């Protein structure tokens, strides 16, 4: 019997109807409860005594429009930092993770180096690194070494984040079952090829969601560079608020950050699903 001649029996039609009604019911329940919760929250907030004042200081449309260009300009710095740092962090983090998972006594120095690196840069507060590198290194006035604040700020972020990301990658690498390595080596692939074609693809898939976490948190931490005097979105917003103590620019900056991170999270989910990345999870 082929697909075209088959039609569901009455029992099956019945089951489908039941499943459909159950789906509709749970969708309705969740829709109604969402609307109710949001409605109640909205009502409580907009009817509170201080609401007109809050609306004026945080959600002033005129102020938003006025501060938007400056905040957007600041955000451009965040975006550039994010892209440059993000890529460097991925490369460095992956290299460190591979160094830490190498086996055999010859690799002891590499392993030691990677371990010390991770311990050190993961342990130091990012703010401290930023100040040390951003203010300390240019002060040395070494020849042929860049003195721009933003450059050293970026270096500090890369050092700190690559230590975190290295551990995420290492967790992924170690979660690949040893039988996978064995199967690959048995086919004649070298250690390096095994890593490249068998272990890393599985490892990276598994750690995609936590990597995404780190990336989003990088976007936000890129603003710390403001302590060195660079003007990012938050700093720009702060400057805007200084004139009249209207905090709307902060809200503008927050919304802009969300506009960056949310599409990216959905995109990773989409890619993960399309490629059948089991364990990549995260569908919302």
């Amino acid at each position: 019997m082929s697909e075209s001649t088959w039609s569901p029996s009455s029992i099956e039609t019945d089951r489908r109807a039941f499943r459909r009604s159950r789906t509709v019911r749970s969708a309705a329940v969740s829709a109604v409860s969402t609307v109710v919760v949001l409605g109640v929250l909205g009502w409580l907030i907009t009817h509170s005594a201080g609401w007109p004042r809050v609306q004026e200081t945080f959600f002033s449309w005129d102020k938003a429009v006025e501060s938007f260009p400056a905040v957007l300009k600041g955000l451009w710095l965040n975006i550039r930092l994010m892209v440059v740092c993000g890529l460097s962090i991925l490369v460095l983090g992956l290299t460190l993770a591979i160094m830490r998972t190498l086996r055999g006594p010859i690799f002891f120095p590499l392993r030691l180096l990677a371990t010390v690196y991770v311990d050190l840069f993961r342990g130091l507060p990012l703010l401290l690194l930023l100040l040390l590198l951003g203010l300390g290194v240019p002060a040395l006035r070494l020849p042929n070494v860049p003195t721009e604040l933003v450059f050293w700020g970026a270096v500090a972020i890369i050092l700190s984040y690559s230590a975190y990301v290295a551990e995420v990658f290492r967790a992924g690498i170690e979660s690949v079952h040893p039988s996978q390595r064995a199967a690959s080596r048995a086919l004649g692939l070298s250690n390096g090829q095994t890593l490249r074609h068998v272990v890393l693809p599985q490892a990276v898939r598994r750690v995609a969601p936590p990597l995404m976490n780190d990336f989003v948190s990088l976007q936000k931490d890129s603003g710390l560079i403001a302590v060195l005097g660079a003007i990012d979105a938050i700093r720009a917003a702060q400057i805007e608020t200084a004139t009249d103590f209207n905090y709307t620019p902060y809200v503008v900056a927050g919304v802009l950050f969300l506009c960056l991170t949310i599409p990216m999270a959905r995109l990773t989910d989409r890619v993960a699903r399309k490629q059948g990345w089991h364990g990549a999870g995260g569908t919302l």
Partner: protein
Amino acid sequence: MTGQPALEAPLLSVRGLRKSFGDNVVLDDVDLDVQPGECVVLIGASGSGKSTLLRCINLLEQVDDGVITLAGLDITDPRVDADEVRSRTGIVFQAYNLFPHLTVLDNVTLAPRRVHKVARAEAESRALAMLERVGLAEKARARPDDLSGGQQQRVAIARAMVNSPQLLLLDEVTSALDPELVGEVLDLLGELREEGMTMILSTHEMGFARNVADTVCFLDGGRVLEQGPPAEVLGAPREPRTRQFLSRLVS
């Protein structure tokens, strides 16, 4: 062998079962009855849907059409509690599917303790007895990864049997075993059958099928093409397709 069990209400009854993956119609129109205490053996080419049928019976796959009744209850009805149904059936997977992060003992005691709420001591003594029975009591503290394929297979059998399920589904349980162990598993299944356990198993080993089965079912083209006592189906198949399949295998 005890021969054909007396006809009573079947423990499991499959009617018009259909299951497809995309355009690939794996099971088209499967009918199957399993009497209490009966041992049914599924044979058929690789990819003929033996594993899929067993997974459907254990509600691990949602069927596209048809009805499966277990002890009088239509288990394909979306209103039934699938977990409750599964806790009454045991399944041994073709790929064992042991939990690598648990010891052998913990693999076997997981369901009794968490699903059936048996106290730890009681669950462990039952599990050890079961492991003893499959000849692996001394491996109770080992991890599945440290066992041989055949040992893992036997742990999986112990894990499925420890709950005393009403129905035991075994997917190619002998594929990883040496002839001696096949003999042991055969003895084990024979004992279980003496105790009245109802079993459905799939296999590619016709000798095994002949020894253990009350009924042999030949799966082909998404249907049970031929079924009957092993002597008939394996010895004197009626359908040309069955003869063709068996001739390749036996010779």
